[in-house]
């Protein structure tokens, strides 16, 4: 069962993690994180080693500023 873990810092910064969605399936849930944080901008995204192991690749991407409206 997919879990969304959000850590909301004292300055409002949100660190969100998608858990229990191994492999490329987790990418399908990125939009859910954005919907959970409307009026927030994604400034960084990264794929963890668990995902990398599953798909035999590793990447770390910093996205450009992307405003998202719910």
């Amino acid at each position, binding site marked *: *069962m*997919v*879990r*969304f*873990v*959000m*850590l*909301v*810092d*004292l*300055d*409002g*910064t*949100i*660190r*969100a*993690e*998608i*858990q229990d*969605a*191994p*492999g490329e399936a*987790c*990418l399908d*849930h*990125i939009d*859910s*994180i*954005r*919907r*959970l*944080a*409307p*009026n*927030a*901008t*994604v*400034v*960084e*995204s*990264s*794929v*963890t080693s*668990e*995902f990398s192991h*599953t798909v035999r690749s590793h990447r770390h991407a910093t996205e450009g*500023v992307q*405003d998202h409206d*719910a």
Partner: protein
Amino acid sequence: MSVELVLIPIGIAALAARRMARATSLCERCRATIVADPALVTEALVVLDWPIVEDGEGVVRAQTPWGSALFRKIGDIFLARVDGASEAVTLEMIQAFDAASGRIAQLRGVQRAREQAAAMGLTLIEQRDEGGQIRLVFEEA
């Protein structure tokens, strides 16, 4: 654990804007706050109970415990200073201001996440304060 995202609420300036603001000379003796949104400036001042004496376009003046303070938007971020005060006093004022602004953004983020989760059919299975940081865990039904 598979994908991690970092999001900054609209109204709070991105780190890059904060770094750039430190180098500007457009607001004499000013230092960077974390705030980008004029509405959040006034909201934080109200929460702090610092009377607003001027609220213009990109410029807000308030009476703070350290003296009269100016908040001026330069680019994507508000800079601030305590008029006629040392840098240390300005930084002390900004620290209190940033803390209030950040707390507003934090609580708003938590509230929105909970509302959105309910609308999306997600279940909140955990919410706890971890030294000021709020942890939320949602699960698909």
